[in-house]
């Protein structure tokens, strides 16, 4: 499909704002102005509409396809949350209004949303307090590691390193390194953190441990209790990567277990749309001993029921966002939690785990499942056996696209060869799951008889397999049409 620049014609325009009246350019000296107008698209409105409508049709999405992308929790995004968030009473509010003296009463609705969401997330996770400011999961991780640093600095602890299991999301070690810590990786044993290994690398310089539970293999960490004790024993902090919270909501509260910091992904667990890559939202919850270090501003509720922004936290790590986080996303998650309520939250986790185990059981006869036990909300399978016949995890993923399914996460976690990671979520029906498995079985049945048909997949998509090496070598990252 042509790019929007290739479809442009000089002099054409879509939306026609009114002509400005004055000679505005006289207000600014010529040497401060640009010499040529930017070569932006020039199309009529209908052609812009058609362009993007056509582009949208080239995408798989949750609204159109089963999307079992592991670790991403691609559950259904309820439409009513969009309607809630689109209200002008929320969208039109300038974020600086509540910061003006005398205007504190003018954004009470927005502040209430923030305050109430913090309370609900606190109850779900068992953490003492939350900040909603981080704008994505990785941003929450960075915030969490900064909180760790603030805690240790304040206590005068000399800490230099953070322990990250080898099964962790890549964002974990990256976040730790950005905050100035050395990263110590520890190897998994039978798919889990080995407390003995942990003990070997543990010393007084360990600032904390970043882990996710259930882990990226979808397994509950059996050594959890000992791990918590070990880390706390060196005054280290336990960080919980909440990417997998959809497995345990209402079943276990990470705060009760002893975690000190948790980030959540509202765009995963709380059903806000993933937006083709974002915006997400990555609130961070902390245990009591870290509350003083949370970013400012914080929303406080007064006895008279009024909300206000409080900046008076001298130990705070400061500002990590321009304002209060991705408010529009937070609002959708808030509406979702209100809709589900006490029971719905628990049922979501239960049915997510049910679906994952059902899928695992149906798949295990056809694809090796290296950790053969009850999983949580997701599980990994390995195509190592198929790879010996020349059909790799990547090929199976591409063949699934031809069947109308998005692919599972592949080659992650790194500790399983030819890994495929499935996360069906609670919102997919049994028929959808069965249809998916049937299609997968059909594909795997061709490994012996017709491997080429899998290796050449996809053939029904807008494009066939793309030359990624060429893309990286040629670096054609912008269009040159119309220049």
């Amino acid at each position, binding site marked *: 499909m042509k790019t*929007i*620049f290739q479809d442009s014609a000089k002099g054409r325009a879509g*939306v026609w*704002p009114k002509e*400005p*009246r004055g000679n505005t*350019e006289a207000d*600014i000296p010529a040497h401060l102005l*640009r010499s040529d*107008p*930017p*070569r932006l698209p020039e*199309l009529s409105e209908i052609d812009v509409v058609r362009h993007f409508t056509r*582009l949208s049709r080239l*995408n*798989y*999405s949750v*609204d*159109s396809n089963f999307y079992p*992308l592991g670790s991403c929790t691609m559950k259904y995004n*309820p439409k009513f949350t969009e309607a809630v968030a689109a*209200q002008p*009473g929320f*969208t039109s*509010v*300038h974020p600086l209004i509540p910061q*003006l*003296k*005398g*205007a504190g009463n003018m954004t009470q*609705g927005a502040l209430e949303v923030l305050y109430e969401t913090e309370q609900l997330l606190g109850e779900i996770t068992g953490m003492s307090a939350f900040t909603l400011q981080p704008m994505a999961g*990785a*941003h929450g991780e960075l915030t969490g590691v900064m909180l760790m640093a*603030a805690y240790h600095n304040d206590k005068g602890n000399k800490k230099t390193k953070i322990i990250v299991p080898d099964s962790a*999301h*890549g964002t974990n*070690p990256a976040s730790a390194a950005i905050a100035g810590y050395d990263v110590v990786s520890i190897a998994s044993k039978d798919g889990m953190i080995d407390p003995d290994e942990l003990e070997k690398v543990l010393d007084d310089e360990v600032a904390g441990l970043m882990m996710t539970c259930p882990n990226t293999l979808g397994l*509950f960490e059996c050594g959890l*209790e000992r791990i918590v004790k070990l880390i706390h024993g060196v005054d280290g902090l336990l960080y919980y990567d909440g990417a997998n919270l959809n497995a*345990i909501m209402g079943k276990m509260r990470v705060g009760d277990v002893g975690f000190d910091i948790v980030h959540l992904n509202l765009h995963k667990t709380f059903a806000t749309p993933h*937006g*083709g*890559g*974002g*915006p997400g939202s990555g609130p961070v919850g902390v245990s009591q001993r870290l509350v003083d270090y949370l970013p400012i501003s914080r929303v406080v509720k007064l006895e008279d029921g009024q909300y206000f922004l409080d900046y008076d936290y001298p130990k705070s790590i*400061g*500002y990590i966002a321009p304002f209060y986080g*991705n408010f529009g*996303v937070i609002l959708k998650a808030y*509406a979702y939690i209100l809709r589900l309520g006490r029971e719905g939250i628990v049922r979501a986790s239960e049915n997510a*785990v049910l679906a994952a185990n059902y899928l695992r059981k149906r798949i295990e006869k056809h694809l090796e499942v290296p950790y053969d036990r009850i999983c949580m909300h997701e599980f990994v399978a390995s195509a190592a056996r198929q790879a010996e016949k020349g059909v790799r995890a990547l090929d199976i993923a591409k063949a699934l696209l031809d069947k109308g399914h*998005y692919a599972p996460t592949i080659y992650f976690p790194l500790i399983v060869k030819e890994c495929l990671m499935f996360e069906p979520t609670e919102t997919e029906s*049994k028929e959808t799951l069965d249809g998916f498995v049937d299609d997968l079985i059909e594909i795997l049945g061709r490994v012996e008889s017709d491997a080429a048909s899998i290796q050449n997949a996809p053939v029904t998509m807008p*494009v066939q397999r793309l*030359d990624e090496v*060429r893309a*990286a070598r*040629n670096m054609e*990252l*912008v269009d040159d049409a119309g220049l």
Partner: protein
Amino acid sequence: MPFIPHTPDEQREMLATIGVDSIEALFEDIPKKFRAAELNLPEGLSEMEVRQKLEKTAAKNHTDLTSFLGAGFYDHYIPSAVDALCSRGEFYTAYTPYQAEASQGMLQAIFEYQTAVARLLDLQYANASLYDGGTALYEAIMMAVRHTKRSRIVISESLNPIYRVMLDSYTTNLKLDLVTVPHKDCHTDMEAMLAALNGDTAAVIVQNPNFFGTIQDFTALFDKARELGIVSIISTYPIMQAILKTPGRMGADIAVAEGQSLGLPLSFGGPYLGIMACNKQLIRQMPGRIAGRTVDKTGQTGFVLTLQAREQHIRREKATSNICSNQALCALRALMYMSLLGPKGLKKTAQTGIERAHYAANRLERLPGVRVINQPFGNEFTVRLPVRAYEVIDKLLDHKFVPGFPLGRYYEGMDNHLLVACTEKTTKQCIGIMAELIGGAL
């Protein structure tokens, strides 16, 4: 249960396939002592009830204000087609385009967005988006630090103070030396900036128009920076970039911006859009996703995420950044906005804001003791009042007018200074009333 499709019969069938007799059995790995008691959450509401409840909550926000607040975040008109197109589920319920063949729509859109941003800012390359203008500045600093292997950062005080306090937080644990050069009557002090540069400096950071609204040319500063091997970073305002001298022409190495003005509502602070563009030498230091054009096996054109070896899922602790989820849908909105307005529409939008702001400045200067401080300016300017700015704001709030932002909040000795912004949505009539109200409040 809402959004859960399984009937009791189906649940039983699924449990039988798994080989357990209850859902509870699936959670046996969680030790008994860690099991949660019943959550203390409210009972679930119907969809109608949630909407009714949150309509009431929304109504508690005052939306009948006439506002001259900007400070880097502006109330521009959003063409209807932006919302109509962006709310297509094929866009907003997809995720990061890991499977390129099933994500060509989003990938091509990212490629087009990168192109539009690079052209607007006049630099070679742009990425697929960062969280916001402030985190984009932080990432730009880290690019410069890696590239130069130096640690001193020279920052103009007229850079948005909301971003300056963010940079302070982000660099607390890093061995960086942030040097802030004071502004001079709301202008970036060029002589002091030039004098602050030296061979240990990694980056120099300015903003255009700056936080006070002043427009300047930084070509000479960036020339000097280049001689000293310093990375030049400029923070910009995308709408004004339709007419202002470009970062590329001034010789900037990295341009960043808050992209909110390009078709995103103010929405109480987010989601917004971190824009970043850079020149060729820095492309491998750039954080975030990047889409590239290539061909498939049959020679047909297509798009993929590329240069991924910079990113956290491959490099882990050695990655350029930890960013994973970005603001893709916001970038898509910005692309749609720029496509609908085109170069002409964007220019008219900029010009109308400038025209209104100059009208407002004229009206205010007629008041006794009121003086406009900066020159030249675009759609935002600073006035000095004979009284404290917050007092004036407080009085005007009674009339549902927000006349601007009180600069004393961030700048010492500027308690009487008010930052006033206009856009194409600001009417002359409202400007007239605002001027009269301020006159009455002095």
